[in-house]
């Protein structure tokens, strides 16, 4: 019913605000608010539950199943618990940084979703397209915004007035910054194949090329996945936040909703990395084999569903990694990023360029 009323409401708003204001300010604002609150946040909270259940299944036990059937109300119980927890700030902490840090972790992760296309652009002008906005430098925007998340970690670790939080925060920041480089370079591969940095353009190029970019750019995909896991501080690269290590990491002193925001930020980052990987490597909203004609009955499934399925596959793989692998020591982690992934990414760019030049002759 809301969907039926929505066009009228939007029309009325357009009349009232005027075209420019509507298309350039109000419409994207409404879209991103809707996206974040109606789509991303529920997915994050249920991702927490999914992780616990899937980890349980990997470990031959059931995950939470007491709160609601199959534990479906567990995230609500978790959120309520975190909201009523005592809100502590260490007495000599730097208050403004302490309060700002979780926001700096969550906000960039959510902003990335404004350029990720979950569906095709609308065929009619002014209609509903599958993305909030499409800018010509979409990929660059994603990388730049993701880097801002590092500030949150550093501020969180430093402002806690705790030597171990500082060490943990610096380690986490060093890890994230180190893996930004191979991550960015890995994204150059699909850029070269597509010829454009706009996210929608890359998906369209995959449709035009009749193949998802994961196949010609397998090495790039692998580097992006590994760097993505390291970026989001997940197993096997989760030393900064592991409980059995010496320090509990940069979020030692946080409790209650602030702590929840850090975790929200981590899961949002996970989903963001998965979404970008889906767009650049797995064809975004395209169905499998987009150009094979006899599979066209599958077109009835909206692009958003294909997108969601692919993102869920990535998230499952994230959780699978967490359940299987031991974790790397910090120096081994840094060595992996700088000594292995970076040269591999550079080599991949070189080889892709060579092949492209050769094919263009």
């Amino acid at each position, binding site marked *: 019913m809301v969907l039926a009323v929505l066009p009228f409401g939007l029309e009325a708003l357009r009349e009232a605000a005027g075209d420019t204001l509507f298309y350039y300010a109000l419409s994207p604002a409404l879209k991103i608010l809707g996206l974040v609150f109606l789509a991303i946040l529920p997915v994050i909270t249920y991702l927490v539950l999914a992780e616990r259940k899937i980890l*349980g299944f990997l470990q031959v*036990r059931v995950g939470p199943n007491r709160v609601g059937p199959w534990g479906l109300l567990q995230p609500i119980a978790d959120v309520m618990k975190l909201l009523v927890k005592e809100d502590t700030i260490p007495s000599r902490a730097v208050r403004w940084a302490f309060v700002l840090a979780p926001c700096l972790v969550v906000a960039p992760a959510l902003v990335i979703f404004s350029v990720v296309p979950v569906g095709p652009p609308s065929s009619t002008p002014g209609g509903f397209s599958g993305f909030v906005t499409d800018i010509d430098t979409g990929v660059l925007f994603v990388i730049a915004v993701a880097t801002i998340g590092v500030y949150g970690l550093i501020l969180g670790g430093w402002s806690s007035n705790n030597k171990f939080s500082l060490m943990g925060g610096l380690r986490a920041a060093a890890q994230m910054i180190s893996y930004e480089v191979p991550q960015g370079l890995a994204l150059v591969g699909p850029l070269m194949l597509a010829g454009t940095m706009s996210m929608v353009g890359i998906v369209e190029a995959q449709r035009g090329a009749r193949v998802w970019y994961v196949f010609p750019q397998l090495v790039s995909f692998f580097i992006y996945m590994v760097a993505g896991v390291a970026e989001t501080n997940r197993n096997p690269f989760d030393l900064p936040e592991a409980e059995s290590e010496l320090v509990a990491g940069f979020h030692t002193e946080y409790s209650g909703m602030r702590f929840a925001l850090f975790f929200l930020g981590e899961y949002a980052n996970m989903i963001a990395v998965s979404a970008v990987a889906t767009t650049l490597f797995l064809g975004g909203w395209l169905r499998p084999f987009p150009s094979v004609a006899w599979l066209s009955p599958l077109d009835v499934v909206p692009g958003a569903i294909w997108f969601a399925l692919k993102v869920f596959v990535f998230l499952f793989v994230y959780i699978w990694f967490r359940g299987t692998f031991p974790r790397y020591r910090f120096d081994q982690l840094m060595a992996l990023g700088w000594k292995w992934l970076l040269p591999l990414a550079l080599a991949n760019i070189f080889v892709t360029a060579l092949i492209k030049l050769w094919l263009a002759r």
Partner: protein
Amino acid sequence: MSGWKRFLDRFLLLDLFAGLAITGRALFRKKETVQYPEERLAPAHRFRGMFRLDEERCIKCNLCAIDCPIDIIYIDWHQELNEATGKKEKKLDRFDIDLQRCMFCGLCETGCPTEPKSIWLTTKTYELATYDRWQHLYADKEQLEGWRGRPAYTDEEIAK
């Protein structure tokens, strides 16, 4: 292993995929979780749980108290003339066990000379938690006689 195979194994991350396969297989196995308290695992027949005392069989020999490694059994008895048989016999005044310290080792049961034993631990009860502490710190004669355990097991189930 030949050099080629080793190189390929390292490069293709086959060891990591093998690990993923093992946990992936576990996804589909039957789960080991027992949904307590709706389902409970039944303890074995010889499970050393809470005690029961049978006062008639007990000959008040004090051997259980002597055998206890932490000396937590307190027994008092006195001689009394039994009207019916005209014989003097021992009557049990006090048989207390300090449940704070009992480690359920079973040495009292091993030491009991009667056949069948007068004190035994095979009530298969391990759920001794209570909300009210003071009633259950010491188990006295009446409690030990009447102990049925939670959930209540029948006499046949807990008899030796």
